[in-house]
């Protein structure tokens, strides 16, 4: 069953966390970019995308993540992802997103490479 997309921005310092919920498809636009804009308004050096409550992501959803990554790279910001299922970890590998987005199992113990603000 499909679930509508929503996102919560948790302003944890130094790395804000975007908690993603539901399905990441075309319907996640503009919710996902808006959440990313809110999370980066303070100029953090890194943003954590939390996929733990995401049940489904399709190629359109991947394209949205690519757009976030492009923006992050332009601003010298790093992206990290957590909560990915084995299947979506595989898709991050196949698409090479995993080369640019650090996939972590536990963001608390695997701290971001860079702290502070961009």
């Amino acid at each position, binding site marked *: 069953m499909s679930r509508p997309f929503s996102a919560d921005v948790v302003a944890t310092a130094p790395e804000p966390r975007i908690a993603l919920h539901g399905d990441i498809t075309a319907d996640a636009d503009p919710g996902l970019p808006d959440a990313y804009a809110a999370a980066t308004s303070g100029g953090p050096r890194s943003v954590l995308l939390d996929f733990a409550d995401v049940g489904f992501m*399709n*190629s359109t959803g991947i394209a*949205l993540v690519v757009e976030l990554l492009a923006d992050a790279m332009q601003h010298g910001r790093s992206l990290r992802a957590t909560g990915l299922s084995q299947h979506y970890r*595989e898709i991050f590998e196949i*698409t090479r997103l995993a080369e640019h987005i650090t996939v972590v199992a536990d963001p608390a113990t695997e701290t971001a490479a860079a702290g502070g603000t961009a």
Partner: protein
Amino acid sequence: MTLIGTLRQRVPFRGRRSTGTEPTGVTALAPGDAGTTAATSAAPAIEIPPSDPLFGFLQAATGVVELDRLELDSPAVRELRDAGIRIVVPLVAQGELIGALYLGPRLSDQDYSSDDRKLLSTLAAQAAPAIRVAQLVREQAAEIQARERLEQEMRVATMIQQQFLPHELPELPGWQVAAHYAPARAVGGDFYDFIALPGDRIGVVVGDVTGKGVPAALLMARTQSVLRSEAPHLASPGAVLARANEILLPEMPARMFVTCLYLVIEPATGRVTYANAGHNLPVVRGPDGVAELRATGMPLGLLPGRTYDEKEATLGPGQTVLLYSDGIDEAHAPDGEMFGLPRVRALMASEATGSELVDHVLESLHAFVGRDWDQEDDITLVALDRTGALEAAIAARADGPAEGSPAVIAPPPLRADEVLLRLTLPGADGNERIAMDRVADAVSPLGIDPTRLERLKTAVSEAAMNAIEYGSRSDPAVPVEIEVAVVAGDLVVRITDRGLSGPLEGTEEPDLDAKLAGSQKPRGWGLFLIRHMVDAMDVATAGPVQTVTLTVHLGGGEHVEAV
């Protein structure tokens, strides 16, 4: 109390010859003592049955009858005498005995005089017509009240039955639907229905309960209720009718049964499966003329354990099927000639479709039976036309494959025993999720390991999304068809679209670096993902129709795509 005063109290007697076939007796209140009110008020009502000789005697009498002088072997006479009645004055109106006045002895114990008898005779002669009029008025009022009550009950019954008939016709992409229902009485035993079924199919029912009126209407409601509850759970029309027969049989009143035609349509493909429980055969108009959709089966509610032939047909664009009840073909002209199936077939041979066809049939029927026709039976008509609109839109897209496009090779048909699922979905955005979930359900008995199942789901959703977005241009009226089968040890999923945006070209291989640099659009991952999620992906086209086939080897070989 005077005699007149006594009579005034006695006139509203009970009883007269009934209007029924079996006459009832006449009764009058009998004054035990004409001089005392107390006595008269307790006087018994003595009924004179029509079989009693006194009844006929009074009917023929010309004046008062003195019981003491009457020599008649009559139980009524004896009863009257025992009650102290001395004189009986018959009340006759228009030759019909409508009552009688009973008088006891005079207070003075003297005999009634000739003047008394004349007065009583005159009084009776004048009172009888007035009493008769009063009786008629009272009877008419009672009849009107009973008729109004019955009419009100019938209005309620009609309203209830209307609730069982479809409130609106279904909107089927690429189809035109029309229906007409006319009970012979306020309520009828015919019925029709449209039942939404899984997989975007629709069930069409036309039925006829034996008899007419309220008993037939009640059984019609029950039958329709059973069909509505059972049809969505049973895949085949024959199974639905067999199940309905088993449920209805124990409830069926004596000498009643139900004929029923049940037809399941896949709107996108025109595929029709049907079964028949003794109902009129549907008539179909196709490129080869008019024919009947034949299937046989016993009416519902007659015998246990019945099975029903199930047949299949495909209605192409421009073809029409007409379902109807015997109120049409068994209607009679004034000279006794029956309307008959040949006339129905001849009407079908016309170019009329939809509501025009229904009107055409009804106009022809009414011309045949004449103006004074008393409708003999309920009439039901359902016309289903597969319009060519959808196919015309597809044909307009392309007359054939463009030069240099992939070869025109349709995939071979799947055998019925290989197929796990056949599904037709409207080409609406978001329906790829339905495709994904339905395919996952269909393959669950195969025990595919979770990792490979997730890959398959992604591949199916991406392929279905492509089909919807490009093949249907996100138009719900343009369907996407999905087949799942196991062929020679491989799981095969075919996703067929109408190719409205042309064949899938060799799309640009997505390159993340190029996308991040802005030289490629962020989208364009679909085919790339599909190829990496399954063991093989093939694209075949036949005209504008395009089929993407996904193959997963079931031998256990883990699919690992080098990246």
